Every structure is written in C-alpha cells, then in structure tokens.
C-alpha cells in the first residue's frame, strides 16, 4: 500500500495494520526518515517537501510493485509526507513484511533507495542564509544503481 499525505503517521498503528491477521509474517523491516537540523554544516530550521500529485502516487506504486516482484513479501507499505516539517519530524516510512528476515531487509532497503531517486519530491530547506532547494546527491544515485 502507498500513501502520500500532509499529516504525520503513527508507526505502531501502521505496522500493526500491515501484519494484522497474517501469521505467516516472521519479520517486518521498516525505515523512517526524519528531518535533520543540519545540512552541509548549516543549521536547518525547517523544510518543505514539494511533490507532483498524481505522478508521485504512480511512481510509488511502481516501486512497490517492483519490490513485490523481486522478493516474497506478505505485505509492504510506503507513506511519504509533503508540506512543511520541522527537525525531528517523520518524513517517510517504508516497511516490508515477509516470512523470513532476509527478504524483509533487502526489499525495505530497495524501496527507500529507489524512492530517493524515482519519486518526484523536492526539498526546500530553511537555512540561516535563506530558503534553498536541496541538490540531488550522487550517493543516492549510487545506492539506487546497486539494485539494477
């Protein structure tokens, strides 16, 4: 399941729903991305995530489908927020449930790596020097490429 929303999410609620009633799940791996208060040595007061409504949902669904094709998952979840967020706030949740932990780990790692380079979101950081659009990082490209 994928969701794009402005509101925060509750991890325990989301993961309980993911595994509810399915007793073939042996493990759930999840990753939560949080807003940091520093970027390249500069203080970040807050950040705003812009996205491309419609395409975002489409891409997240494609990424999730790809993970389910590559690994034997019982359930998977991507929640990505947009809008303004302050340091410490949750930005994104990806989670994969599988009978065995290896698949859960790999698929979850894959989801966030692909999402980082394929989901149409853009970060605007509020720094002391003003608002600045974040540049894409080569390390994210490399991380995504390792799943090719």
């Amino acid at each position: 399941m994928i969701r794009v929303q402005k509101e925060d999410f509750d991890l325990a609620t989301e993961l309980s729903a993911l595994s509810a009633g399915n007793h073939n799940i042996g493990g759930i791996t999840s990753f939560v991305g949080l807003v940091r208060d520093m970027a390249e040595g500069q203080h970040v007061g807050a950040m705003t995530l812009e996205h491309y409504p419609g395409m975002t949902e489409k891409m997240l669904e494609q990424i999730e489908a790809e993970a389910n094709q590559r690994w034997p998952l019982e359930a998977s979840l991507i929640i990505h927020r947009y809008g303004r967020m302050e340091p410490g706030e949750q930005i994104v949740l990806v989670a994969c449930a599988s009978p065995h932990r290896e698949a859960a780990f790999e698929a979850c790692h894959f989801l966030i790596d692909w999402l980082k380079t394929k989901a149409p979101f853009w970060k605007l950081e509020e720094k002391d020097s003003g608002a600045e659009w974040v540049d894409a990082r080569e390390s994210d490209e490399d991380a995504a490429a390792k799943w090719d």
Partner: protein
Amino acid sequence: MKILYFAWMRGKTGIGEEDVSPPETVTDVAGLVAWLKTRGPGFEDAFSDMKVVRAAVNQEFVELDATVGPNDEVAFFPPVTGG
C-alpha cells in the same frame, strides 16, 4: 498541451502550470524545450543547464527525444530529493 514546473524551475519560470500551443514543428521534448526558451529570460534561465533538468510526459520519466503532442501533460523539474 499542459506544462508543469516544479521546485526551482517553478521559481525561475515564475509559474507552476500553464497551457501552451507550440507550433506543429514541436514534436519531442527537446523541441518543446527549445520553443519554451524563446518565451522570455525566465524560461531561458530555467532551461539553461539541461543536465539538471528532468522531464516527465503524462507522469512517466522520459528522455529528451520522447514525443509530445497537444493532449500531453509535460512536467519539468530538477533531480528528485525526497525520502
């Protein structure tokens, strides 16, 4: 043809969304970009370095040689930075 701009491309062009009717000679994304650039210094600036511009047609990533037609939704934006 519907055009969308995101992040700093929206900032440079000054608009987030517009409907345009490019000449019939415009048949692919590269041609569209060339035509859009003729429409003012903001557009010229936004498309000045195509290495940092990505495009989507009907909400799918495409290369510059992808075809475009009057009923397409074309979006331009920098490399994504979510997650």
